[in-house]
């Protein structure tokens, strides 16, 4: 019902008829009205064949009102989709923006990764649904081969030639809101990014961490729906400006009602 309500509100702007709303039962107010209180005029009972020519006054036979028929529902307020506490999870391909600093030294570089997310949302009866989510993306990796360092420590190079294996990952903890418009769902969130830069050089691993603010925005399309479960295709843009990490994702999001109110 929520979809229909939004579409009704937007119809003048979109230039579409509310009947386009999908997954929406016809409102009770437009159903065939049951003439509950309007008795149907009964045909007069046929006069007896033995009756004299002067017709006796005929009283209409009592007719049970149609309203009494069990098939006819009484008019009621439109049914409203219940509010719910929704669990959701998504799995996506990610594409990181940016380049390695030293392309001439970088032997291999992968910017396509994976992003997974889980969260909980409150599907309210109103336009905006708040959510909080936690996601992690394995965003990029590369191998960079260095020559001997030209910085000397006690007469020796600060490091000897070798390959640095690099990996970029990011956690995103983000509250935000979604808004349903027909079968589309807009998403916006802003929260904390935890950028993890992992390196391995000469067998020694090291991870550097940065905690920038991060924001996300996305657009999903509801592809499949059954009671209490929905499946969306979703594209998303995530940016942690302070750490200069930006990536796109495209994938699927499953949403199920945990509790309805």
């Amino acid at each position, binding site marked *: 019902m929520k979809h229909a309500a939004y579409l009704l509100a937007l119809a003048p702007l979109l230039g579409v008829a509310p009947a386009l709303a999908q997954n929406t039962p016809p409102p009770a107010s437009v159903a065939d009205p049951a003439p509950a209180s309007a008795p149907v005029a009964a045909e007069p009972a046929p006069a007896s064949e033995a009756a004299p020519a002067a017709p006796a006054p005929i009283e209409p036979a009592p007719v049970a009102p149609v309203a009494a028929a069990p098939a006819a529902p009484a008019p009621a307020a439109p049914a409203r989709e219940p509010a719910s506490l929704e669990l959701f999870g998504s799995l996506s391909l990610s594409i990181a923006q940016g380049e*390695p*600093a030293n392309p001439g030294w970088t032997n291999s570089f992968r910017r396509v990764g994976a992003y997974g997310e889980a969260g909980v949302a409150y599907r309210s009866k109103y336009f905006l649904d708040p959510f909080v989510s936690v996601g992690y993306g394995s965003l990029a990796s590369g191998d960079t081969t260095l020559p001997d360092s030209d910085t000397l420590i006690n007469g020796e190079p600060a490091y000897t030639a070798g390959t640095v294996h690099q990996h970029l990952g990011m956690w995103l903890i983000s509250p935000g809101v979604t808004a349903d418009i027909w079968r589309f769902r807009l998403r916006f969130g802003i929260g904390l990014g935890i950028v993890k*830069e992992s390196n391995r050089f000469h067998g020694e691993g*090291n991870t550097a961490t940065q905690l920038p603010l991060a924001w996300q925005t996305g657009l999903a399309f509801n592809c499949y729906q059954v009671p209490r479960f929905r499946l969306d295709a979703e594209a998303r843009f995530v940016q942690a400006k302070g750490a200069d990490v930006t990536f796109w994702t495209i994938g699927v999001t499953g949403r199920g009602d945990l509790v309805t109110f």
Partner: protein
Amino acid sequence: MSPNSIESIRLAERIGSNAAELDVRVTRDGIPILFHDPSFSSSLVRGLFCNGLVNQLSLAELRASCLMRYGEQIPTVEAALDMMVNETELEGVYLDEKTPEGVLPSARLVAQLDTDLKIRNENDDPSDDRKFGALIGIPNDDVLDAWHSAVTTLKAENSDRIAAGQTPLEIPRCLLEYDSDKVIEEGCVAWGPTWTDGPQPDNVQKLRDHGIGTIFWTINESEFIEGFLTTSKPNGIISARAALLFQTYQLIGSVPAPLNGDQP
């Protein structure tokens, strides 16, 4: 051009500076480098894998993952000092120590440099003399504590060198940024107050009476450059507009009274 790059030091010389102020941090493996912020950000560096705090990456990881914003390499303090002495005519550097961890490795480099220059200037060949001074900049009490510790360490190392028959290293000189009275107390050769505290002519004169110079940072507006030059007559001003400072000084500046000892 990125600040704290080798290229920016060359440019500073070309536009009239006679010294440079550089920001010092250390890598995870203890190598002092020139970088201003505590963490890597897109405003200062480039590189998809250039993330985290400066002291979380080793020099090798830094070289593999990071360049400065406009493509320059992040220099080590050693490389910057070497370039300034051998490839420019700059007369000094003020190493602004952003963390306590950077003080001892920077002080070791400066001690070695001062010693090399002293030997070079005291030999019989005046043609290779080189006038250059490096100061360790102390912005707060944490760095000051590290400075005390570094001096103690260098003096202990000098004792070992003397015992081994080697030439002891010069103990570096310091510049204190915050408390004018502490500058005298600590025996630093210069005071480096922020310009936002005003020209403070009385403090400048008080320190001058003790043979201590004053270098204000960082004044970029012409009216303030003019005001500070005429009001307190400092020994130096750090500015991103060195050419403007040079021109203003030529027009209205005056040479401060000579200091008692060495000056930057």
